[in-house]
């Protein structure tokens, strides 16, 4: 990765944070954070989910005010009271979620914020936009509706908006999370150009490789505290490998190789056992929005992890929903331990030992405003020992909930906290705790690490391995090929609602699965 040496910039930082602390109920989001943002630098804020990155951005962009400490702008202590104040100070922010009005055109979005009594000046805007976008090498269609643009194009518009407002600092909050690989590269080039013009870029990410590729200076946040900073001089002196291992040490306090490298341990003696789950010719008619299922047949043995690969939207979700009983099938049979379950409703399949961890953790998996404790027992509501004659047994619920919270290392202020307030990783643990309870035989995971930060993803993968090691069958649906190659014993590939091939996870599996995914024979 080549990195041009940036000019040292002026001697003073544009913004400096001194001992900034921000508390929310039950959490210290930022704990005495010290940070300096210099012109001409890409300053990477690296940290896991919940490390306090978003709160820091909120403070800089005027959405929130710090409880303690102060923010210096050009050396003067300044309270940034509102987003418009932040803009007038030259702080432009591109938030993680698009901040464009979908029903307005790009031009109208860029014009938002001018004095209300004025007529929108589209012609003046057009010339300025052409000027700025040409020099950056980006193209925007001013007359398109914002909702018609791809996420990458929307981001360009937002960056453009910040530049049109003469921002001196551009904050990019998790800007790569929605982008394609080529979009990420384009963004990297763009950032280089911006700092070349003397802007400061603050780039927030939880991906180590991006931090190493795009940054000049890196600050690492962990649990609301800044745990380390790598200055540009040292940054340039290190190669990517040593940088990444340094990040890992700062973030997780242990040195290791690429933490996403998963070492797979083969499970001996699987193939002899009788299948715990047999699916025969499972069929469901396609609809206008989903590909349906055609003639799905596979066996899953105890202790085996069967990966389901495929490009998203090729029937994986339908397969999981059909197996768990959430959607009806037209034909075919599902045998759990030799017993047909295809006519059973959801709860009966669960009772029989088939468990499903949905990818839609908050929408479908939990009731967000309910406390963690009730969410553990959502599928046993009304059952003993937690309910007797329809009356909730608070003490019993809490006792059991606390045990699960400890056993699954769920980070929650209390068992009474609404589950929607937890981070994605902790919600996943709540689901795991619930679904693995008493008598699981087969566990279906749908995109188990989607949206999780590294530590939680690794923990989840370990958990999946443990589940298989304890003799349960695991069906692992994922769009992450590395994850499948790291965990599965066999990998089945889905395309257009059918299984187009099943591959033993051997040395050649990567290319075989890859070819199947894009529609070539293995």
């Amino acid at each position, binding site marked *: 990765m080549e990195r041009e040496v940036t000019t040292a910039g002026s001697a003073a930082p544009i913004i400096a944070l001194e001992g900034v602390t921000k508390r929310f109920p039950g959490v210290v989001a930022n704990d005495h954070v010290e940070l300096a943002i210099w012109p001409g630098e890409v300053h990477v804020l690296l940290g896991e989910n919940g490390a306090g990155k978003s709160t820091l951005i909120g403070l800089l962009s005027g959405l929130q005010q710090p409880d303690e400490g102060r923010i210096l702008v050009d050396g003067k202590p300044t309270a940034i009271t509102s987003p418009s104040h932040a803009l007038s100070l030259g702080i432009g922010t591109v938030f993680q979620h698009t901040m464009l*009005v979908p029903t307005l055109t790009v031009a*109208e979005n860029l*014009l938002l914020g001018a004095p209300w009594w004025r007529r929108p000046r589209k012609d003046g805007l057009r010339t300025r936009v052409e000027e700025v976008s040409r020099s950056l090498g980006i193209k925007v269609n001013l007359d398109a509706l914002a909702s018609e643009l791809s996420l990458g194009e929307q981001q360009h518009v937002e960056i453009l908006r910040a530049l049109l407002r003469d921002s001196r600092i551009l904050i990019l909050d998790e800007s790569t999370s929605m982008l394609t690989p080529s979009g990420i590269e384009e963004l990297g080039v763009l950032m280089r150009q911006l700092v070349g013009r003397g802007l400061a870029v603050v780039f927030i990410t939880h991906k180590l490789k991006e931090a190493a590729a795009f940054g000049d200076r890196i600050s690492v946040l962990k649990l609301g505290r800044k745990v380390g900073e790598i200055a540009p001089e040292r940054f340039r002196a290190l190669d990517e490998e040593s940088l990444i291992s340094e990040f890992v040490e700062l973030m997780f306090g242990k040195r290791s190789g690429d933490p996403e490298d998963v070492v797979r341990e083969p499970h001996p003696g699987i193939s002899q056992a009788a299948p715990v789950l047999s699916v025969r010719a499972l069929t469901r008619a396609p609809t206008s929005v989903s590909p349906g299922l055609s003639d799905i047949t596979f066996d899953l043995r105890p202790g085996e992890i069967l990966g389901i690969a495929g490009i998203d939207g090729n029937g994986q979700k339908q397969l999981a929903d059909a197996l768990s009983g959430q959607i009806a099938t037209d034909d075919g049979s599902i045998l759990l331990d030799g017993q047909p379950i295809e006519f059973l409703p959801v709860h009966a399949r669960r009772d029989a030992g088939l468990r499903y961890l949905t990818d839609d953790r908050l929408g479908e998996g939990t009731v967000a405003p309910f406390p963690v404790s009730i969410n553990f027992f959502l599928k046993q509501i009304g059952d003993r020992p937690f309910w007797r004659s329809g009356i909730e047994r608070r003490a019993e619920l809490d006792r059991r909930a606390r045990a699960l919270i400890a056993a699954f290392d769920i980070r929650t202020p209390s068992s009474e906290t609404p589950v929607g307030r937890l981070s994605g990783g902790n919600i996943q643990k709540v689901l795991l705790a619930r679904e693995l309870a008493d008598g699981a035989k087969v566990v279906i995971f749908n995109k188990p690490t989607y949206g999780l930060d590294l530590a939680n993803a690794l923990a989840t993968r370990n958990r999946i391995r443990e589940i298989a090691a304890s003799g349960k069958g695991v069906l692992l649906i994922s769009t992450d090929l590395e994850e499948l190659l790291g965990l599965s014993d066999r990998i089945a590939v889905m395309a257009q609602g059918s299984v187009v091939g099943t591959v033993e996870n051997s040395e050649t599996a990567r290319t075989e699965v890859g070819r199947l995914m894009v529609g070539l024979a293995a």
Partner: protein
Amino acid sequence: MTGLFSEIFLSALLFGAVTAAVPLLLAGLGEQMSEKAGVLNIGIEGMMIAGAYVGFLVAFMSESLWLGFLGGAVAGMAVSSIMVLLCVRLGLNQIVIGIGLTLGLEGLTALLHHFQFSRTYPRLPAADVLAIPGLADIPVLGPALFQHNLLVYLSVALVFVMGFIYRRTQLGLNLQAAGDKPSALDIAGVDVVTTRTVAVLTTGALAGLGGAYLANVGAGIFVPFITNGAGFLGIVLAMLARGRPLWVLFGALLFGISLSLTTALQVAGINIPTDVIQMIPFLAVMVMLVIFGRKSSLPAALGLPYERGSR
């Protein structure tokens, strides 16, 4: 049946349609602005009845129709400022507060009217009419459309003013952003609460004006509950019009005709029970909702209070 198709009957029918349409038009335009900005203003019925009562009272006392209109608009605005405080500033539930305002003001105006006039219902003199030279002489249409109070023409002009504001001004952009993506507006440096406040106060003024017209010109009298759902019809119009002022005008005229039919059919002595005739406007609502309701696309943030920093 000849009475039904005589020139005089048609002319009276259309005249009545316009008179009935104006309060709906004003309420619909007002509601449209609130909804554009993301506030579902169920209290508009209460704002209308307040405008009707105060508008009538001021016109009765001062013997000036226009002071009455002004009074009505101010009263509507006063009621909407309660909505601003509770729903826009404090973020309380817009539907609950809206229903509360409507019920409260219906009762309050009935009570005040009773204190003031006991059981007498004084009438206002007939409103001045401005005949538009030339056009007013067209047979049938002339007397029906071009011999109205000045406010009627102003209301129609307002349709085009609103269209201009929504499509061509910065204010229009701000209003739409406040309803579709308030966080984007906030980040662009425009205060969402202020934008919505302006919208709701305007709604109140227009609804109050519509109420005052209803009492002072349409009826020439104030009776308790005189608005009889006109504000709610305004909400329906705003929803069906999908942000287009011209559609509010068409819708208001359509409802105006059906409202006018109820009176005209009674006058014409058609042998249909009055209860059935009085159902016509509301049947028209249901038919329109069935035909167009599915297509109504409402602002994404409609009914949601804005809180900075939440997504």
